[in-house]
């Protein structure tokens, strides 16, 4: 038997508005852009819900009812759930319904989709717990498998998750790290007791998430028949298909046929008696560990480098990260809920990604996915907002 293990990431940051130097000390609102552009968080939540979350989840709900053997898993950032609750309750309601089928697992992560693990162990723990509480309140379930922001992973993260009782943890299945090992098996992270490691099969995942609509791709168009055949031929116990949920309808638009593909995948797979669907927890329970994996350096699912350089690669990004975590002590001393909340919203990884300049080289800006005109504009808005927050912290003490 071989299993398909889906994990979909649902995340939306609170984007910082065009916050100018002149606003410092005068405007304590950083995330309330009311324009028609890409910084209006409400508009974006509504748009993504309409284009992706609602149609994809309605379809998924239908499929889960039609195919009782179908399984998927989700990880929702806390701030995505917050925004859906406020701006797109219909989408959140659909998510609740799919989780209620019992065929869907919800994973654990940081509430603020932050890189706090690498900057503040205490803050990291607080954010994971806050996320767990939210998932419990909204979905009534308790996360048993953990995934960190941008699928960032390291031995010590697995050791932490092991110590906190998680059954599993997810990471990128990157060949240079795996060597001869296939991502299609269950592994044990180095120096852990009970936790299991599941690795993303990035080739099959990216066939759907990135290449699906690419006409330059020799395999275009991707049909469920073709994909089912590939999965059938693949060796291993589990094919881990990890991707952003926005793949359905937002990254790949409806007219690419992505919903059609999703709709017919379970039916196609049911033709092959050797393939089933499993959640990460079920995969861990079903298949035995094949080997131990040692990942001492940070691995992520980002771009071709598979490291954190998209978030920490240039001096601006490092300065911004240092600056936000330098406020930690002051924030706790100020003991003000509003300040704490704003500070945490400024930790979301997307802010630092928008400052990335490595895709901005060679005059090729097509890879620069950002609501800002340039990494420099992103940095200016962020640092100005952070300067205001610092003033507020100083005043509160």
């Amino acid at each position, binding site marked *: 038997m071989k299993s398909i293990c889906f994990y979909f990431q649902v995340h939306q940051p609170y984007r910082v508005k065009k916050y*100018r*130097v*002149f606003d410092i000390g005068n405007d304590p609102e950083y995330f309330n852009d009311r324009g028609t552009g890409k910084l209006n968080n409400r508009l974006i939540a509504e748009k993504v819900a309409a284009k992706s979350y609602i149609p994809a989840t309605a379809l998924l709900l239908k499929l889960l009812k039609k195919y009782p053997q179908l399984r998927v898993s989700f990880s929702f950032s806390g701030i995505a759930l917050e925004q859906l609750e406020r701006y797109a309750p219909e989408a959140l309601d659909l998510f609740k319904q799919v989780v209620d089928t019992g065929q869907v697992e919800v994973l654990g992560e940081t509430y603020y989709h932050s890189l706090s693990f690498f900057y503040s162990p205490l803050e990291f723990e607080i954010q994971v717990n806050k996320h767990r509480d939210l998932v419990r309140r909204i979905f009534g379930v308790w996360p048993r498998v953990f995934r960190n922001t941008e699928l960032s992973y390291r031995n010590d993260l697995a050791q932490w998750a092991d110590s906190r009782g998680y059954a599993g943890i997810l990471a990128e299945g990157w060949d240079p790290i795996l060597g001869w090992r296939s991502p299609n098996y269950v592994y044990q992270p180095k120096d852990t007791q009970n936790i299991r490691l599941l690795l993303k099969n990035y080739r099959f995942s990216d066939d759907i998430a990135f290449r699906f609509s690419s006409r330059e791709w020799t395999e275009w168009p991707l049909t469920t028949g073709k994909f089912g055949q590939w999965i059938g031929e693949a060796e291993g116990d589990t094919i881990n298909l990890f991707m952003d949920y926005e793949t359905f309808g937002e990254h790949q638009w409806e007219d690419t046929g992505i919903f059609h593909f999703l709709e017919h995948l379970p039916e196609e797979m049911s033709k092959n008696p050797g393939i089933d669907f499993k959640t990460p927890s079920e995969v861990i329970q079903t298949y035995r560990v094949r080997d131990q994996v040692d990942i001492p350096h940070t691995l992520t699912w980002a771009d071709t480098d598979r490291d954190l350089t998209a978030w920490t690669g*240039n*001096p*601006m990004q*490092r*300065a911004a990260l240092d600056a936000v975590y330098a406020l930690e002590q002051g924030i706790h001393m100020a003991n003000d809920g509003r300040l704490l909340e704003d500070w945490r919203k400024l930790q979301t990884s997307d802010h630092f990604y928008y400052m990335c*300049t490595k895709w*901005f*080289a*060679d*005059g090729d*800006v097509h890879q620069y996915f950002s609501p800002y*005109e*340039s*990494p*420099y*504009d992103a*940095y*200016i808005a962020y*640092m*100005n907002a952070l300067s205001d927050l610092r003033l507020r912290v100083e005043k509160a003490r």
Partner: protein
Amino acid sequence: MFGWEFPPFNSGGLGVACLGLTRALAERGVEVIFVMPKKLDLAVPWTRFVFADGGDGLESIDMRVINAALTPYLTPSSYDEYRRQGMAMAAGSLYGPDLMSEVKRYAAMAAAIALKEDFDVIYAHDWLSFEAGMEAKRATGKPLIAHVHATEFDRCGGSWGVNNDVYAIERAGMDASHRVIAVSELTKAILMTRYGIAEEKISVVHNGIDETTAPQGDSTLLRLHTLKQAGYSVVLFLGRITLQKGPDYFIRAAKRVLEHNPKVIFLMSGSGDMERQMMDLAAQLGIASNLLFTGFLQGHDRYEAYAAADLFIMPSVSEPFGITPLEAMRLGTPVLISKQSGVSEVVSHALKADFWDTEEMANQILSVVGYPHLKNTLSENGAKDAARLTWSRAAEKVDTVVHEVMHAL
């Protein structure tokens, strides 16, 4: 190739472009005969110069003065003004009574030169040499390529005040050309909408920069050092002080910056018809002590200004290309450029703002001054950006157009 100015006898980007382009073309094996309207002491190893003023025996002319009188950025009316002020007196009888006469005289000589020389394609830079290009074409029947570095609409900062004679020459020159080269998409759009030139006839070739054209110097003795030691940041404007370049927006942004941070010095380098007006404006806004006028800078002075600046600003109202930001970036100086510029189409590692948005410009200036990592990242990446935009890249595209024209015959 018909031109109008060539370094060191140039007053702006047109001459720089001719220098960079001819050298890069020569490196590709293209032989360029560069025609100038008058005899100048010019010699570069890669190009042969021909002068359209009968040539020999005229070396004793005061070149600086003559050059000033023939600056391509003068409008016909300001040329009259120059003459009235007696600034072109030394030119004597060599020059016509106005810029237009000089353009016509150049054109009249062009046919004779063209008949004497051996070449395949005629190439003319801007309206001042378009008539010469057209005459050469009439005399020889050889194909003409028009390279547009600026249009009358850019020089006037809009449609108000456009000189009809200049417009007519620009239009006729482009109509007579087999192909037109525009220095940016912005210029291409102007050529299509204002001059009715067919899109398929226009190729965009962005300008470049390399060691031939970049300002050179050593950074040992910067005169602004003391000021910077005292904690001041330096923000630089370098260009003609004319409507097109947006000097007034620079000053209004400076005013806004100084309200928040008095430790910033604004340098305004260049000369032009708005210089006096800008001094008055600075005084009126009460920022005269933080706004220094340096006059027109050349050579090492120019290098020093770039190197000392923490930020270079080009707030042009309408800039067909804009080479100066590339000069600054090459020296590791961060730049803030107006979105209404051709250079903003090819430069990624720069701050950009609408020329009229002085509030945003002030925000960006204060950020560069206040966040050292912003400055450093812009500096490092900007230098790489400028290194990528070479003249050989531009020459390759020009070469392609030249070959297409030759093979179309």
